[in-house]
């Protein structure tokens, strides 16, 4: 029996079985997504102070040191097909316009009229020939330059400096658009390193919108980030997933600002007995791959590898090009956390991405954006863009698993404010939480500068 990839003793965990999951040999992945275990960073075992989840002071520091400094995910390139297509997205108290230019490039500028401060456009998507403020018809070009100020001659001081909205950094990568509120932000390539090699093989540009939902959640944005950064909670709040994935044989990798874990899917958790019948969710995986579960002669424990083989063999005929993905990627969940607020489950046939945005004023609220994309097989028609939906915590179901995730968060948020809760008591299965907070600390206090008294 090989050792657990994270060095834990699987026989001592609360599990019924010790399982050795077959994994792709790191030597064989070439230029594809690396699979070797990254060295574990030295992160200590201190508690993570609870106050950072609800204190207005910490929220203000996050605004000053993180949200206005780093790169942020803005939207999808395929929402910006034609010149004039724009995405208007909000972060905290700011709102930006990301606009496709006539020359095919994208530009970003604040969604605010320089005259009296009115928003130029409501949040959402659209197409514009120009951005005209509804208030006094100040008019901006697609590039944010002021093209017309009615009665300009009556402004003794002339127009605002440069006759332009402040240009903000904006790049397109891997079918997504990124922007920053910081004109001096580091180059995007430095920021995203090393994830280009990790995520480009999935070719998200071949995937179309499947769900686009924003839920106002009653918790701090980091409460949500933490919720998706560990699999330890599967045995707690997602009992049904034990017949769908292996929550114990998880590989965690931390890289600079970002981190990931790799979860075997189409697998049975060692926390339950191996069933003799194919569990419903794994049955679905087989059907989606094009297999007939009734034909399957193997054992339930072999399904993961057999689905990988089947997809490898039949993918091309189904118009699905898996050539840049390794076998594990054909079944497993490679789950990335892109600092500060993107959690993305990448799969060979779909992507489930969560963008977790702070509320403008209340540290006990956040916006949880669910973006799901599905591979469009070659030769099939690109589906119509799904409509964006928006609602409040608990108003509507967002699916069984995410409902389970969401259910706890308000009570976590209120519980963390107890005088008797100093902070998060984090275990090694939650290493990504610790890593995320370390990166956050380095942004807020300077690298390695956080002291014991700091939040």
């Amino acid at each position, binding site marked *: 029996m090989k050792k657990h990839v994270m060095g834990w003793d699987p026989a001592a965990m609360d599990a019924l079985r010790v399982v050795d999951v077959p994994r792709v040999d790191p030597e064989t992945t070439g230029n594809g997504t690396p699979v070797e275990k990254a060295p574990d960073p030295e992160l200590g075992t201190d508690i993570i102070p609870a106050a950072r989840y609800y204190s207005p002071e910490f929220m203000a520091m996050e605004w000053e040191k993180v949200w206005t400094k780093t790169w942020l995910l803005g939207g999808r390139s395929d929402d910006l097909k034609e010149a004039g297509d724009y995405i208007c997205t909000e972060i905290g108290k700011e709102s930006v316009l990301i606009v496709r230019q006539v020359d095919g490039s994208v530009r970003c500028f604040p969604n605010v009229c320089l005259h009296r401060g009115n928003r130029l456009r409501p949040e959402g998507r659209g197409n514009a020939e120009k951005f005209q403020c509804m208030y006094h018809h100040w008019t901006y070009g697609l590039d944010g330059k002021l093209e017309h100020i009615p009665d300009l001659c009556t402004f003794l001081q002339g127009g605002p400096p440069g006759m332009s909205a402040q240009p903000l950094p904006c790049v397109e990568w891997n079918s997504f658009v990124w922007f920053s509120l910081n004109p001096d932000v580091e180059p995007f390539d430095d920021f995203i390193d090393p994830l280009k090699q990790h995520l480009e093989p999935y070719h998200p540009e071949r995937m179309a919108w499947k769900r686009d939902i924003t839920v106002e959640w009653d918790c701090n944005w980091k409460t949500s980030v933490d919720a998706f950064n560990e699999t330890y909670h599967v045995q707690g709040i997602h*009992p*049904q997933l*034990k*017949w*769908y994935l292996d929550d114990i044989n998880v590989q965690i990798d931390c890289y600079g600002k970002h981190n990931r874990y790799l979860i075997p899917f189409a697998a049975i958790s060692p926390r*339950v*007995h*191996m*069933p*003799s*019948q194919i*569990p*419903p*969710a794994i049955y679905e995986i087989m059907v989606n791959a094009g297999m*007939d*579960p*009734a*034909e399957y002669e193997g*054992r339930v424990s072999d399904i993961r590898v057999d689905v990988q083989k089947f997809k490898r063999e039949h993918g091309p005929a189904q118009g699905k090009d898996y050539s840049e993905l390794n076998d594990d990627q054909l079944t497993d969940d490679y789950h990335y956390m892109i600092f500060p607020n993107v959690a993305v489950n990448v799969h060979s046939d779909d992507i489930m991405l969560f963008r977790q945005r702070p509320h403008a004023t209340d540290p006990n609220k956040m916006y949880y954006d669910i973006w799901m994309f599905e591979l469009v097989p070659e030769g099939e028609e690109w589906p119509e863009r799904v409509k964006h939906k928006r609602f409040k915590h608990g108003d509507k179901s967002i699916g069984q698993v995410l409902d389970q995730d969401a259910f706890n968060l308000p009570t976590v948020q209120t519980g963390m404010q107890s005088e008797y809760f100093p902070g998060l008591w984090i275990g090694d299965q939650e290493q990504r939480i610790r890593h995320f907070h370390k990166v956050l600390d380095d942004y807020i206090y300077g690298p390695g500068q956080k002291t014991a008294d700091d939040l």
Partner: protein
Amino acid sequence: MDLGLQGKKAILVGAARGIGYAVAEILAREGCDIALTARSEDSVKDAVAELGKYGTKVVGKPANAKNADEYKAWFEWAIEELEGVDIMIPFTSAGGGMGSEKYWHNAFEVDLMGAVRAVEAVVPTMTEQQRGSIVLIGTTSILEAMGGPQAYNALKASIATYGKQLALHHGKDGIRVNVVSPGPIEFEGGNWDMIKGTMEKFYNAQVRQQPMGRLGRPEEVAKAITFLASDAASWCNGSHLVVDGGYTNRTHF
């Protein structure tokens, strides 16, 4: 009451877990020698090792009911190992499923032919001995329409008919054949255990339909099967015993 099982020889198909294993355990405890099989080599090994503690002869080898030759050879091996056969119970089932014609082939091969081939493999020896007891396993899903139009229900129903025919035909040779139809049975690692974990609402709905407010346990069915298999049931032949905690609504006149 003496079940008269001491020294008897039992062949059990699909007995590595669940009801089959519970029967194996009772039979071993009562002093039977046992030959058992299941599809998975590991689970057969585990079951044989575990049952050894009762001190009778317990042997096992994996076999697949779908593979007629391999299956037949397994029975020859089992009868030889036990030097005869007094009791034979085939538990093996392909389980439910809808939406693919393959489920009909699977149910035919495993649920029906798995039993038919097993019966045909032991009847010559039992006839020669002028002694034998066979219990076939049905399901409450053959008594009332449930679970949708499934191959499982339809082919399990044929087991009840087949069992009665066998009873009448082989009675003269001292071979008794009875059928036991269990209702939903729950055990760790079993189907209902998985359903409880993956489809909690459906599970709870099932429990609400149960007069005793719970699902059955393997040993509760195993005791009924063991009785029919034993000499204590010497006048039970061609009977069909429903063991379901009162789950089915129909009245048996």
